[in-house]
């Protein structure tokens, strides 16, 4: 599986580290994101907060809209496909998308199987709530992982839970004896080789970003201090009162996530944050899609 293309795809994710990937729905928003210092944009027709509000089946975006965003910016452009919808992925590959997000934000197309991502040349990022999910997605060919924080809510609690859980499980795997790894692999339902990598290196074999519910510079810095290597911001920017200012502030917060004095300055006068929904008020838990 560690072929040349897979390696190049993992390495593109390495170049995104320390950066912010922003959801955008129009070329104008993409330009705002790029000017604010985004390291990539996620092109989609509706941001998660609106998908949640609208209900119904949510699918891959119109290729014309994705092309428009590809033409508007020079940074990498990502786009989402439904879990298991390998034809949507084939279409995005034909568009030469830079990264595909096989995402629980859209309605799943398959309630058993994820896409066999080893069959594609373009890279995939997938969500994970725990170490088992992360390693299963990597085994299927994902070259980047993100948390599955509840999209479109502006509530950080689930992204925090997933990041803490993944990192706690990594520490536990590190502490095992070598002959205990076989049983651990069985219990986590993951391949032994990937678990052995985690045991030896104390990290996932691919880059791990935070996603879901990030709405403020403090949220972004929180995820970085918890061990995220970068962040996705979805509804948090373009559902807020001053997208330009908030986007730039989140970018700076990710770069200097340990500098509390700077974070205080960045958090000042950002205008209205997205209103958000608390975890207990959510009717649809998107993170439960695909395991």
């Amino acid at each position: 599986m560690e072929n040349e293309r897979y390696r190049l795809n993992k390495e593109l994710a390495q170049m995104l580290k320390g950066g912010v990937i922003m959801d955008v729905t129009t070329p104008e928003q993409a330009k705002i994101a790029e000017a604010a210092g985004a390291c990539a944009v996620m092109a989609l027709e509706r941001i998660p907060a609106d998908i949640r509000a609208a209900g119904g089946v949510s699918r891959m975006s119109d290729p014309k809209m994705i092309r428009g965003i590809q033409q508007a910016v020079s940074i990498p452009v990502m786009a989402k496909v439904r879990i298991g919808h390998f034809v949507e992925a084939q279409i995005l590959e034909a568009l030469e998308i830079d990264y595909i997000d096989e995402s629980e934000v859209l309605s799943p197309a398959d309630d058993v199987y994820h896409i066999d991502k080893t069959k594609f040349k373009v890279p995939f990022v997938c969500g994970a709530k725990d170490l088992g999910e992360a390693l299963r997605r990597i085994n299927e060919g994902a070259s980047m992982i993100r948390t599955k924080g509840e999209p479109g809510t502006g509530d950080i609690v689930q992204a925090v839970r997933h990041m803490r859980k993944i990192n706690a499980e990594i520490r536990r795997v590190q502490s095992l004896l070598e002959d205990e790894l076989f049983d651990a692999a069985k219990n986590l339902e993951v391949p032994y080789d990937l678990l052995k990598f985690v045991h030896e290196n104390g990290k996932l074999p691919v880059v791990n970003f935070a996603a879901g519910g990030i709405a403020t510079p403090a949220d972004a810095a929180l995820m970085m201090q918890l061990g995220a290597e970068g962040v996705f911001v979805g509804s948090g920017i373009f559902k807020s009162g001053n997208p330009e200012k908030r986007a730039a502030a989140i970018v700076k917060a990710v770069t200097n996530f340990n500098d509390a004095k700077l974070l205080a300055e960045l958090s000042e006068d950002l205008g209205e944050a997205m209103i958000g929904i608390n975890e207990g008020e959510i009717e649809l838990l998107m993170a439960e899609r695909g395991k």
Partner: protein
Amino acid sequence: MNIGVLSLQGAFIEHRNILEALHVNSIEIRNKSDLSKNIDGMILPGGESTAIGKLLMDFDMLDSIKNFIEEGMPVFGTCAGMILLAKNIENSSVKHFATMDISVVRNAYGRQLGSFQAISAFGDFDKTPMTFIRAPYIRSVESNVKILSTVNGNIVAAQQNNQLVTAFHPELTDNTVVHEYFLNMIKGRC
């Protein structure tokens, strides 16, 4: 010896790991106060040049680092780092340090599907592994710039006095030739 690695965004840890393997001390440069620390040279890593360029402005670091380079501090830019140093960026009106007499093309091989690996000569070293990720290349150089490597007819590594650039990512391989070349520049040997 102490190397500052610009750590605003991108693959800076990978550079620090290579330096550690070569037993060279390095520090992360994240804000203006880090620039007052004692460093013998600086690495500008790969990442997104638009993001790094914006952060250099926002954190008021651009002019200070530009001064260091013009005063002779050895600097090594990979990929996005090379774009930061170029005097001319063909498909962009923005300039960053603009201290090196090269003209570069961003995303010269297209999108991620155009990313590739190659093995080619770097200076006197043949068979150097090179990783190109959404890479730029150098379209042209002034006569004071020494070309160190070409791949498929495009210039991918060059040196102008204290400035070294590569369009590829030596920090993503376990080959240390390019980093050793940079350390020798600092020691005044090439």
